Each structure stands twice: as C-alpha cells, then as structure tokens.
C-alpha cells in the first residue's frame, strides 16, 4: 500500500520539533503536515524565528524530530540511524546554506568533488568542472574559498549541492549573505539548474520576489503552516 501519490517525494505527517535551550524547551515545529511533489519548487516563508530553517533541516535529516513521521518516497526517514541518515543525504539531498560552508582547506574543484568522494562515487574531475563552468566559475576552479567573493563561494556551494545529482535540493536563504546583484544571479542559477537536473527544490527565503519563482509557497508562523 502506498501512502503517497505518485509524485510525492517528501511527506511530513504531524511533525513536532522541540529544541532545548539553556533554560527551557521550545516547541519550534508544532505539527507540520506537508506533501512535497517531485520536480517542483517549494518556497518556505515566514518571519524570523518561525521555524523555517528547522523545517528545512528536518527534511535534510539534520534535525531530529520529537514526534511525527517523515517519508522520503515510501521510506520512513524519521527513525533512521545517524549513519543511515548520512547515507540518505549523500544519495538524495543537496544542501545550500546561507553561509556557504565550504571547506577552507580545499579548492573550489575539490569542494565540489567532496560529496562524490564521500559516497565513494568519484571517478574524475570532468563532471565537477562541467558544473563549475555551468555556474560561471571556469576561471576559478583551483581557487581556495578565501580567494573567492561571497557570490562566487555560494556558486561553488551550489555546484557542490548538485554534483551527486540529488533529487532534492534544500536551500536555506542562499542569498542571505549576498548583495542584490549577486542574489539575483544566484537565484537565477538555482532555478535554472533545478530545471536542468529535474530535481525538487526546497527554498527558504524572506524575499517575496524570489518566492514568486516557485511552484508553491507555504508560510510558517509560530511552528505551524498557515
């Protein structure tokens, strides 16, 4: 029996996330139900502290949920062990962070290769170079992160998130640290690549104009979808 319809790639059922702070436990997500369709783009909006990042990271398998269920296709991922979650990420999820998170000790090319190397699928540089070209960094291949501008670093991060051809791309405010010009370029790139790679995009943003590019928009408030 399939609990999802054909194109659902991620399904959340009544998901709760509690976070412990120094003094108290905060309910950050309070019963999220969500269906994410394959090959579509979905935008998560909401004011600061609403739980957007938490929701995105839950889907990425980085945040433990307190209650509820999450399915990737038919597979439950809410009760996976840490190492299996790592496997799930390596195979299916590409993450783009607000603060790029490149390894400073590696060149752009090495950073892009990294996910392949981790999953043991690395063969040669061709694919990564192609990706770096497609994000417009053909002249920065052997540069280290500190030798790149913010926008360039984020483009390396985008290339890295796509290298294992994941079905899901999660981008948490990818333009939060960029200026207007760079932001537009990066967003354009993300959507373009999402189309080309036939992947599902989960985008967290504050920007209404960016949100409008997406197939679907949900708004979080106080841990619930409005």
């Amino acid at each position, binding site marked *: 029996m399939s609990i999802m319809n054909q194109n659902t790639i991620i399904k959340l059922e009544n998901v709760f996330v509690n*976070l*412990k*702070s*120094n003094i108290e436990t905060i309910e950050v997500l309070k019963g999220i139900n969500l269906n994410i369709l394959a090959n579509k783009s979905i935008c998560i909006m909401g004011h600061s502290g609403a739980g957007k*990042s938490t929701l995105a*990271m839950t889907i*990425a398998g*980085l*945040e*433990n949920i307190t209650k509820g269920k999450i399915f990737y296709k038919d597979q439950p991922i809410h009760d996976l*062990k*840490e*190492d299996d979650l*790592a*496997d*799930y*990420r*390596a*195979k299916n*999820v590409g*993450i783009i*962070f*607000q*603060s790029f*998170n*490149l*390894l*400073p*000790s*590696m060149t752009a090319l*090495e950073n892009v290769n*990294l*996910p392949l*190397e*981790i*999953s*043991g699928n*690395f063969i040669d540089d061709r694919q990564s170079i192609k990706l770096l070209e497609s994000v417009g960094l053909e002249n920065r291949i052997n540069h280290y992160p500190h030798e790149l501008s913010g926008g360039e670093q984020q483009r390396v991060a985008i290339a*890295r998130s796509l290298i294992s051809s994941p079905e899901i791309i999660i981008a*948490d405010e990818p333009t939060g*640290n960029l200026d207007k010009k760079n932001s537009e370029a990066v967003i354009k790139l993300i959507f373009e690549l999402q189309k080309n790679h036939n992947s599902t995009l989960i985008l967290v943003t504050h920007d209404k104009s960016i949100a409008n590019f997406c197939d679907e928009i949900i708004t979080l408030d106080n841990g619930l979808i409005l």
Partner: protein
Amino acid sequence: MSGFKNIIFRKNLFLKLSVMELRGSFNEFKIVITSIFIGVFIITGVGSLSKNLQYEIDNKRSELLGGTYEFSTTYQEFPKEIKNWLEQNGKVSQIVEMRTMLSSKKNSLNKRRIVELKAVDKNWPLIGNLKVETENSGLISTNINEKINEIFVDEGLKNQLNISVGDIVKLGKIEAEVKGIIKQEPDRIFSFANFGSRVLMSSQTLKNTGLVIPGSLVKYKIKFIPNNKKLELSFLNKLIEGTNVSIKNIKNSTNNFNTFIERTTLFISLVGLITLLISGVGISNGVKGYLIKKIKNIAIIKSLGAKNNQVFKIYLLQMFSVFLIGIIPAVILGISTPFLFSPLIGETLFSSFQAKVFFEPIFISCSYGFIVCLLFTIIPLSKTYEIKPIHLIRVSRDKIHNEHSNKIKIFIIFLICCLCFLTVNLTSDIKLAFYIFISLFISLTILTLFTNFFFIIFKKIRFKIGSLLETIRRSIVDRNMFSKSIVISFSIGLSLLVTLNIIQESLDKKIYDTINQEAPDYFFIDIQPSQIEEINKIAINSIGSNNFNAQPMLRGRITKLNNVNVEKLKVDKDVQWVLKRDRAFTWSNVKPQNNKLITGQWWEPDYKGPLLVSIGNKIAKGLNVKIGDKIEFNILGRNFEATIHNTREIVWESMGINFIFVLSDSIIKNAPHTLIATSKNKNKVTSSEFVEKVVSEFSNISSISIEESYKTIKSLLKLLIIIINTIAFVTLFSGVIVLSTILDVSKKDKLYEVAIFKILGSKPKKIILLWFYEYMTIGLLSSLISILIGCLVSFILLNYLFNVEFYLNYLTLVILLLILPIFITIFSLFKMLKLIYSKPLNVLRSHY
C-alpha cells in the same frame, strides 16, 4: 574487480581528505611532535645503547675479566699451594688493589684525593693492552712493571689535582713520578664501583710505599688462563675449598656490570616512558585544540553525507602522519646513539666498541610511541562523533547519544592492556608497572572529579543578576564549556609541577637536616689499631672526643646459614648482595648509639661466651633467619660460627657508621684489622684542620668528605629533577595549545561582544576589566585544583614511598599558585587586545 577499485578509491578519499585538511597545520603540532620525539628517542636510544653494550660484553668477556678465571682474596696473600698450582698449570698474572690517599706536592694547598691503587706484575695484562699517554711519545702501549716509584694515573685524577705528566706526588712513604695518563686499561670495567681514580704501579713500587701492613684492606687477585682448555670449574672450586679465595669466570663475572646496565636501562626507560605518558597529555591537548578548530569542517563533511566512522578515520589518519613525524626521527636518532657514543665508550669502557643497529629497541619504542599516541588521541577524537551538522545553523544542546562509545571504551581498555604488557616486558617488574599505571590513573581521575565538582558548583550557584560575579560566572560556565577544557589542560601540568616541587623540597629539607644535625663531616678508613690512641688525643684537643667515633672493622664472607652453604640458599632478591661478596663486620659489647633493637636483647657488657651476632632487621627478614639461628663467617681464612642474639633497625639515612653484622667481643679482636671512624664539628675550619692533621701524620689513613659525596649524589638528583621538571613544563605548556585554539575559535564571538559593548556605549577599559576577571578566575581555579592534587599526591608519595616528612614551602606554593592565573590572563588579553580597538561596524557586518 569493481570492489577492488572501490577500496582504492575509499582509501584515496581518506588520504586525500587527510592531506588536504592537514595542509599547513603542521605548525600547530610542534609541541605534540616534540613530546613524542623526546619520549620515543629516550626509549630507543637507551634501549639500543644497552643492547649494544650487552652484546659487546658477551663478546669480550675474557678480555674484560683479564683471563679465563679471576681468583681473589682479601687481607692475605694467596695460599702458596694454590698459587703454585696455578703457575704450573697456565698463564698467571697477580694484581694487588687497595685504597689510599694521594697528595700532590705541586700545590701549596697540599691537595689530597682518595685513589684506587692497582699494582701489577710483569705478566699483566694477560689479554689486551695497556695504553698510556706519556709526555714525549704520545699514546703508547706499555708495561709498568719495570718502573720503580713511577705511576700512571687516570684522566680524572689529573683534572682533580691539576697535576700533569712529570709531576711528583706523595703515596705512603714514597714520592712517585707521574709517568703517564691511562687511556685504556683492559680489565677495567669490573671495578666501576670505584671510590677514587685509578693509580697504576708495579708491585715493587707498592712495596716501597709501605702501605701494605697487617690489617690494611688489600685485595689480591690472580688472573688465570689454564693450559688445559677443558679444565672444569668444579675442579678449581675443590682447589680453593676451605680458604677465603673466590673465583670468577667469564660466565658469572659480568653479572655485576650486567645488572648495572639493566638497572640503568630500566631507570632511564622508565623516565622515557613517563615522559611519553605525560606528554600524552600534551598530545591529547594538541589533538583537542586541532579538532576544536576543525569542528565546522567536520560538520560540513557530515552534512554532505559522511558517516561518523569516515570522519573518525580521516582525522585519525591525519594524527598518524603527525605521530610519524615525531616517531621516525626519534627512532633514527635513537638507533644512532651507540654510533654517536662509540668513541667515548671505546675510550672509557671497551678498547674497541662496535656500534650496531638492534631491532628490539626499535620495536619496543615504536610500539610504545604508537600506543601512547593512539590512547591519548582516541579520547579527543571520539568527540568527533558528537559533532552534528546542525551546528552549522545553531548551537545544539541536545543530549548526544554516542552509539560508538562502548566500542571506543573497549578499544581504550585494550590499548591500556597493551601498554601494561609492554611495560611489564620493559621493566620485568609487574609491581612497578602496576604502581605507575595506578598512580597515573588515580591522579587523572581525581583531577577530573575536582574540576567537574567546581564546574557543577559554578553552574548551580546564582549571584545577583547584573553583578560582576554573576557576569563572570556566566562567561565561565557558558560557551561550550571551553573554560573546563582550559582548566583541565593546565591543571595536569601544574599539579605535576606542584607535586615535584613539594617532593623535592621535602627531600632537600631532609638531606639538609641530616647533614646539619646527625651526619658526620668526615669518614676515616684504614686506621691501624696502634694509631687510634694518638688520633683520640688529637681529637680531644680540637673537635672534642665526643665528636670522634671509631669502630674496628674486618671484612669476611658469609659461608653458611644454619649449616647450609650459601651457594645452595634461596634468599630474597633484595638481600642477595649480602651473600655475594665479602662484608664488613665489627664487634662491640655495647649497643651502637643510633640503632634501635627490634627483637632480642643486647649481650652483657662483660660478655665472654660463645660468639654472638646482632643483625639488621630487614636483612634478617630477607635471609629468613631469626634469633637463635646460626651464621658462619670466613674471616681471614678462618671460619667462625655465631648465634643470632638480636635484630636492630639500621637508620642508613643518619650517615653514621652502620654495620649489618655486629659481633660480640671475642678472640676476633686479636686478628689484624683496621678501624673506621667519623668526625664532626660545628666549626667547619676546626673540622677540616683535624682531618688535615690526621691524614698528614698517618699516611696510610684515608679521609672522605661527606659533603663532597653528597654533592655528587645531589647533582645526580638535581639532574633527575631537572629532567622531570622539564617534562612538567612541557606538559604545562601544552595547555597553551588548548588555550590558544580556544581563543582563536571564540575570537569571533569575542569580537562580536566587543562590538556590541561599544555600540551600547561601553568603554574598552570596562571590557578589558571583565575579560581580566574572567581569565583570572579560570587561572585561579586551575591553580587551586592543581595545588590540592599536588599536595595530596606528594603527601601520599612522601609518606609511603620515600618515608620522608611532608614539607611545604609556602613561598613556592604562592608562586605556583599565582604563576598560572597571571600567565593565562596576560596571554589571553594580549591575544584579544587587538580586537578591542577594531571598528565596531566592520565587525558586525562580517559577523554571521
């Protein structure tokens, strides 16, 4: 096929990632690498050297013994029939050895030294060559036998008395000319327990000195190479039966020197091992510091789908390459020690020392190195399991369940077992290995408990919100418990330092007290009974008769215990030395002053009956004898049987004259003997004048200054303390790695803090003050914990190991207490100072 490829790529990944991560980080591991290097080098070096020496000894036994057999006897010449038989049945060389004073005529100050005389005949040496440096012909192989009233001396004596070839020195009745400096004495090695320097002469010269008189302590030796190569030891043993002659052959001769090498090796290896173990803390700190810097990278790698084990391996591999950088040069330098020392050894110990590479020490030191490194790396490395990729977004306070913790615990226990096994192997002493590990373990446990205790208190208590105390409390308790890491890392080094200092000062005080209150200033040996009255008179007129104390002495061997031959006896290892060689005896019908009776009574002052003996309590226990048991001695070739009448506690530390065996007054006192005496006086000048008078009047008497002897012991002790102190400092310094990395990592937060303070209108001065308090508190906390532990550990060690009173010098304690807070504060503030004057807006803009 594809599986194979897969493996290569996986390996490749680890290597690649490790290399990339490590790029440019080697600098941070300087201290780690140095600590590993020192520990491994000491173990390899000492191991190689001792293996090599033992190998050489095995190859040169007969040269070192000076013949196939060595016969020796004390006080008396060899019985005629034994000497004759030996001369008829092989090559023979006779040697006479004794101790005396030599004075240089050159210096007006009339300098004297105690020397070891060795008079040889024309056949000496049977094996090897004597090499001497003379005035005009340089280094030559020569013979001393032809030369009358001429001597060869040691390099050491030459330097001590500042004499040179051609000088005239006084020896007993004669004045002799120094003809050369001894460069190589073929059968030297067995007399390493020498009191003084060697003086070599012909038998005729010795006769001329007039030093050999009845009762003087003279050793006669015959080196013997039999014509019949199949001659059995048992035959020779029969030959000497019933005499006080003893035999050494190449099989049992090297025992002494071998034990000496073994002991020394063990001791220095232990220093090496402890260096390694203590530097383990440095290693641990270094790794911890490195990993703190890499937390973000690890989170990134994990967010990209890396499994825990992959991360663990990537970083373990990096640490391994760091270890190799320490271990490989250490091993190379270690195995070249014998080569570096070979000229020195060739000159002093062996005529031709051949340096070689031995495998065993390499294996042992490498195993040690790797196991210690692994042990101290695994613990901080296992913390990588706790790093979650979600840290990239927020600080996580979730309780971390580490499913690998059990595996790691088992692995750590396994490593500790390996270490114990190796240590037992190295020391061949299970008890010692056990003590080392137990004490290290307990100290570390106490340290962690103490620190945790303080931090729990810090977490629990609350001060008034907004008050200074509360602000400090929060800044210490917060921030990933970094402060705890700082406290622990520094406390280990400092508590070691405190412990060492307290022990050192307690020992120093004990030695000082003993020297000043109980110990005599000088020892006199070889006093003839006929001279004692005269000396007593001199004493009455200068230092006072109470301060001069003489006792008769004779040397002899124990032959039987309760009618069983000592060769057949099994006794405690600790007391074997009592039975091995001849021992000194005295006799007296009054109990020695500083001795306490443990069992039995002292005999009557006018006792005249069968021979009784009083014996040291510990020795009696070791020999397994009690009151009423019988001991047979051979003194001057005659056997005496004595009954044990009581046991005494001997206080060796008092430095007075102590005899293990005190006999009752009997016919023995009529045998030719000498006296041994001590003198003391509060006035140093009076004391040395007395000595001067005695030795210049009686040329056969030798004096030894206690202060001089103590100087040697103390300088040895000092060297040891310096070595261990250095290690402690290295350990202390390794705390800096942690502090420094933590400061680096928290720099961003600090910067942010400063910026906000500034924007809110706070003056930099206030910020500095707050930080000052914060680091001062952290430093004081570390000092406090260290001093608590240092006092505790040193108290236990002093009471149960050294048997010395615990002595606390408050000045040192205060210095030790303050050194760390001041250092930490200055270091941290210095690192942070630059931040304070940065522009607030720039900081805020770049902070994310």
